[in-house]
């Protein structure tokens, strides 16, 4: 297992280097000079342009700029935002808990509904329940997020008044960040009603963000289960007279889990990268919205630092998924 883990870790190094180069290069190949965009309709004098260019370090050759960035990264320094002048590292970690909290709630929602739905659909293959579930999943998968979110807001917040429209916390509650996770901080604050408000604010965005992973997980679970259920050893298990619950739950599910975990891992990676649409619609202060704002403002350090952080997190999630494979399937860790 340790050898397996080390071999997985070894792939980290070239990937990390590649990500550094891509994150640095990405924003620089976009057309449009950040200084000219900043000046807007008014424009600026050549002299002023040169001053700013020097100030931001754009006057030096690209390899020099990259080397500075790269050596900074190795020392844990992602630079400072051109706009706010705050360290990118600080900005990232002040916003990341919001993204993480939402992503976890969304994935829990998706697994809690998607996994059972997929299993049931596989067990009752071809029956009404299977067809209904899979058509719903298809609808969920193809639903435009923007439309879906607004629909839920209009019905549940606007018409029924059950949930708040957007934000992370009722405006009447005001406490300092301790962990950055509203569910925890609201409890720590000791303010009555704050936790309930945090939960209420999480419901709609979690549903919206979890919808696509839910559909994917349900479909993946179903097809993996179907494949396993047709295996010889399942027939043997049934022939032995094991109860259907034991056959499906123990023998089939465990073997069907590999592709399902892959899909869940990929979904978590995507969700952690910041759900740009969901965060924007629900005024959710996470890293997705932060990255988009920074791209429009051509805030180079934030875009490259943010991309790098997201990539590293996705790499870590993938590593965890790999370890999970090993735990579930001994054949993999021996490979």
């Amino acid at each position, binding site marked *: 297992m340790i050898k397996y883990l080390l071999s997985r870790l070894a792939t980290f190094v070239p990937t990390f280097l590649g990500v550094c180069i891509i994150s640095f290069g990405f924003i620089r190949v976009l057309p449009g*000079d950040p200084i000219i965009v900043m000046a807007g309709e008014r424009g600026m004098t050549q002299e002023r342009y040169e001053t700013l260019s020097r100030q931001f370090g754009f006057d030096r050759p690209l390899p020099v700029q990259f080397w500075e960035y790269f050596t900074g990264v190795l020392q844990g320094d992602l630079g400072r935002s051109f706009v706010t002048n705050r360290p990118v590292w600080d900005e990232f970690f002040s916003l990341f808990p919001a993204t993480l909290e939402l992503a976890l709630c969304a994935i829990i929602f998706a697994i809690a509904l998607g996994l059972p739905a997929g299993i049931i659909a596989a067990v009752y293959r071809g029956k009404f329940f299977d067809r209904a579930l899979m058509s719903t999943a298809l609808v969920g998968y193809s639903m435009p997020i923007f439309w879906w979110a607004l629909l839920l807001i209009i019905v549940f917040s606007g018409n029924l*008044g059950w949930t708040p*429209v957007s934000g992370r916390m009722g405006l009447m509650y005001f*406490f300092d960040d*301790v962990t950055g996770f509203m569910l925890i901080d609201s409890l720590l*604050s000791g303010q009555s009603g704050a936790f309930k408000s945090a939960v209420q604010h999480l419901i709609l965005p979690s549903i919206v963000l979890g919808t696509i992973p839910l559909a994917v997980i349900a479909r993946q679970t179903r097809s993996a289960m179907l494949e396993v259920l047709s295996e010889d050893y399942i027939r043997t298990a049934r022939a032995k007279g094991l109860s259907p619950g034991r056959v499906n739950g123990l023998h089939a599910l465990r073997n069907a889990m590999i592709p399902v975990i892959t899909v869940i891992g990929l979904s978590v990676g995507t969700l952690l990268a910041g759900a740009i649409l969901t965060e924007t619609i629900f005024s959710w202060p996470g890293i997705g919205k932060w990255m988009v704002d920074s791209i429009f403002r051509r805030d180079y350090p934030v875009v490259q630092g943010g991309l790098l952080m997201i990539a590293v997190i996705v790499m870590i999630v993938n590593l965890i998924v790999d370890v999970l494979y090993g735990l579930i399937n001994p054949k993999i860790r021996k490979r």
Partner: protein
Amino acid sequence: MKFVHHLAVSGLALTLAAGAAGAQTLVYCSEGSPEGFDPALYTSGTTFDASSHTVYNQLAEFETGTTNVVPGLAESWEVSEDGTSFTFTLRPDVQFHSNDMFTPTRPMNADDVIFSFERQMDEENPYFSYAGSWEYFNSMSMPDLIESIEKVDDMTVRFNLTRPEAPFIANLAMDFASIMSKEYADAMEEAGTPEMLNQQPIGTGPFAFQDYQTDAVIRYTANEEYWEEDTPKVDNLVFAITPDASVRYQRLQAGECHVMPYPNPADIQAMMDSDDVEMLQQEGLNVGYLAYNTQMEPFDNPQVRKALNMAIDKDAIIEVIFQGYGEAAKNPIPPTMWSYNDAVEDDAYDPEAARQMLEEAGVEDLSMKVWAMPVQRPYNPNARRMAELIQEDFSEIGVDVEIVSYEWGEYLERSSAEDRDGAVLLGWTGDNGDPDNFLAVLLGCDGVGGANRAQWCHEPFEEIIQEAKTLPTQEERAELYEEAQVIFKEQAPWATIAHSVVFMPVRPEVEGYVVHPLGGHLFDDVSLASE
């Protein structure tokens, strides 16, 4: 963990208005996050709303709802006869806010005023490069204009200019001229945390900054020692950052906020019909235009430019692009601005006459480029579509149009070039309500190769706008600007297209909100009717 503040209210919705203790909290669903809280570092209105319009004051200020300049932190000012020296008498006993790190020991005085400007122009000042660059200060040419600032006494400051400049007072009412506390700046420098000036602002304004949760909520409390009596009217002000316009509308309806900016054009009719919303509106201080390159044939001939202007069906553009909520422009300045010349007559839409004029000018088989901006602006919400409408209009008089577009930075740069090919769609939103800010910046000879996209340098026009800068009174200046607008219309360097209308949906219980023509959102005089 620190319990800071708890408004005793219950439920999600309107209960925000009046708490158990009777404290009134006004919630504004703002459209984006501020870049910081030192307004001089930035140029966006979103940042100004959160800083200069709430936390700070300026020496002179814009009267809410107009572009008139009125006394702010300066009680009065005098201009020397040659127009190059401005002496300000400061308002006595104005207190700065305090926070956890700082409590002021003295009222605002001349040192604060001098610090506020010196940090933007003096490289030796410790705050000169503490967080970024002073974009607005530079783009308003202040470094060339201000020769020196002297402290006459504790409560008197004199600005010496390198040349007479009548719009200077209006410049000092702008956001970058907000007055900061020197005492606070010194304390933060000593503590090794100068960035606090941009993160935990201390000002003299109607609202004191309390807390900012990045990208989520900004909180302010009323400044109880505010120098203007009975202001502000509410006890707390909250900015609930809500980037999506449809969601802002939902929040307004649900009572999660009281005021929202920038509604979706598609929602405007529904808002007007809704009982939960009161719709305020005003013409924006902007203009959208099509600038010919007056240095290139055949557009160097005013006759040709006028002919093309007559071929554009502006009413159709207002209907299609602005969904009816805009005003056809005839002058290069908007109607809410002083000196607007209403007597100027617009070139009538008349394709037949236009075709004839082109023939008379000897122009046949003209083909040209029309540039369409890639971004949305209040003065032009859909440039691509606008260019298509113009293409259609021009084809009716036999002019063939090719529409081109570039990425925004590229567009701005290329459209400035003197040898640029074709006519450019662009526009402008006023900075300080002074006509000079439109006419000199966009049409003056200095702007050729820069903000003057028509590359138009017309001697009679230039003389007038230069002279107007040197005159002391608004009446005298207005006369000249009115004349300048007549020349502009005759020479037609642009097709003036539209001024947009700004809509502000507010809840019915909101009292005293006035739409500000300069685009800022101000809450000093806003109160909430108790139910």
